[in-house]
């Protein structure tokens, strides 16, 4: 058995479960277009009701991302954003909000900082966990050890192509929550959710008792409502990042993104959560 760590993430999902409410996990790329802008946007998101915030660490070669997040990464790198800068941002935010933070990164920047140094710094600034896009349980032994030693959650991805054996591995390696990729593909908003999604989420449920967040392609309140009764949280990324791209200023971005988050959260509250329906 895993030792039960009560992180901010676990506590938030427990509150959601009690309230019978679908959670909203909001992704933005940190440093897009600047770290100062991100600070305002994140606070606006937290206030608008985001339950968990994923902060993307920009990377030069984001091979799992679609055009919207690719461009966000470019903007963030252009303004000089580094992993260290993102950690410092979390530190500043932590003095102002208790919303859980998950660092969302490709492996190389973390590896170059050093796994233990990364975990120590993440814990120190008040981050709650990490999700590394291009690392799977097989290669994650040292990373998990470093993270768990600091009581940080390690979120892993499950995909439509994952076999039962792989789902078991992923469930064992994950803490906090498990992130289900709704479809094969890269990040990016889509009109319709994959038809295979309910079956996929049920398969994942069979492998884990952790909360399940579903992401990739989720952009409309309608998508979020559909996830009620199926998943524990909806992850929205590209649809929020697109608002930043459109906005003329950090202030406008924060306003637009908060409005979007509020609308999505409203849909999440209206959706029946799985827990409630099964109670």
């Amino acid at each position: 058995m895993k030792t039960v760590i009560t992180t901010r993430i676990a506590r938030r999902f427990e509150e959601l479960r009690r309230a019978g409410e679908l959670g909203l996990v909001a992704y933005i790329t940190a440093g897009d277009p600047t770290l100062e802008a991100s600070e305002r946007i994140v606070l606006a998101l937290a206030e608008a009701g985001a339950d968990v915030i994923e902060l993307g660490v920009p990377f030069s070669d984001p091979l799992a991302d679609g055009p919207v997040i690719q461009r966000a990464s470019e903007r963030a790198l252009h303004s000089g954003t580094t992993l260290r800068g993102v950690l410092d941002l979390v530190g500043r935010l932590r003095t102002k909000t208790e919303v859980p933070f998950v660092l969302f990164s490709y492996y190389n920047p973390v590896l170059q900082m050093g796994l233990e140094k990364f975990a120590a710094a993440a814990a120190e600034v008040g981050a709650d966990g990490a999700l590394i896009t291009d690392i799977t349980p097989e290669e994650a032994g040292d990373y998990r050890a470093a993270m768990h030693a600091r009581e940080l959650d390690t979120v892993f991805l499950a995909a439509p192509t994952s076999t039962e054996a792989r789902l078991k591995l992923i469930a064992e390696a994950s803490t906090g929550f498990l992130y289900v990729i709704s479809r094969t593909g890269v990040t990016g908003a889509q009109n319709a959710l994959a038809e295979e999604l309910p079956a996929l989420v049920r398969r994942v449920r069979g492998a884990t008792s952790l909360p399940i967040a579903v992401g990739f392609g989720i952009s409309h309140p309608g998508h979020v409502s559909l996830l009620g009764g199926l998943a524990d949280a909806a992850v929205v990324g590209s649809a929020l990042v697109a608002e930043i791209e459109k906005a003329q200023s950090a202030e406008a971005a924060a306003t637009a993104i908060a409005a979007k988050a509020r609308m999505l959260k409203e849909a999440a509250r209206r959706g029946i959560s799985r827990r409630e329906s099964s109670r």
Partner: protein
Amino acid sequence: MSVAAQTWPDARGRFGPYGGRYVPETLMAPLEELERAYEAARADASFAAHLNAELKDFAGRPTPLQLASRLTEHLGGARIYLKREDLLHTGAHKINNCLGQGLLAVRMGKKRIIAETGAGQHGVASATVAARLGLECVVYMGTEDMERQRLNVSRMRMLNAEVVGVDAGSRTLKDAINEAMRDWVTNVRTTHYLLGSVLGAHPYPRMVRDFHACIGREARAQILAAEKRLPDWLVACVGGGSNAIGLFYEFLGDASVKMIGVEAGGRGTGLGEHAARLAFQAGFSGARPGVLQGTYSCVLQTPDGQIAPTHSVSAGLDYPAVGPEHAWLAEQGRAEYTAASDEAAIDAARTLARTEGIIPALESAHALAEVIRRAPKMKHGEIVIANLSGRGDKDMEILEKYL
């Protein structure tokens, strides 16, 4: 060194500490499927027979091992042999791997292949094999490479492949691989990713090596027949490292055979001016172990772990990481890695054209530049085999400027 060297990678795709599998979860099951399919094909004599027949009748294997007598005389040192991969159908070694993976794709029931290409040779070979096997083919290529290797873009289109220009990042090979991986992660159920070098996640570095190992197998038999002994040196250029490992692999157990991989020295030793990942002894900076595009190897990068831009006159060598097996051979000191500058490569291409009547690809010209630098200092009895990985037709627009 002997037997142990031949057992890499281990079951997890590691060459010492290098290699492995660093991909989004969506690609893990497909990589496992590919590994199983490849193992099954390897154990199936009919697969080998089919592949060998295609290599012989369609691609033109075996390729000659030619004594470069006028180049040898011109340099006045070691005896120089050229392994003539440039004579293969499509004009480079790349077809060896494309035929292998193409037949594997058919075996796996995949009707669509995708590929990345830098110099365009892998793209042309992929398009060629797709046409031969009746598969749909999409090739991703950086727009800078489309510009400098224009002839190959036309060849691919003639062969009915769709060439998709990639305008991101440095608009070269690395960016083409990112885009190919995005396609693969999206269409993984119907599509085989025909990766063109000993890069990427396990099992690619091993599988691509195996499909090119025929180069060294032939060369070893050919040199024994011609000289009654093994060569002293093997020299090959290293982009991802497929033609080099193809030549080296069969000789790894022969302790007396020294191996040199030649990277792109570009126009200087600073980060961004070259693509030398392993030639740090020659003063090239910026490479450290890291993860790029599925594998842990030596990568040109900034201190923050962002992948660095690279430069080479040769599109096929212009890439910030190197095959994990080369990182391991370098670390063990089994092979030595050095770099040749843009200028040295162009000079070498001219020298080969005028002494032997062969216009080499700019990639291969990097290997020749090292031969030209070293051979005069070698003893007369010493034997060098250089891998002439491709022919230079595709590079004429660049070479023309230096006539």
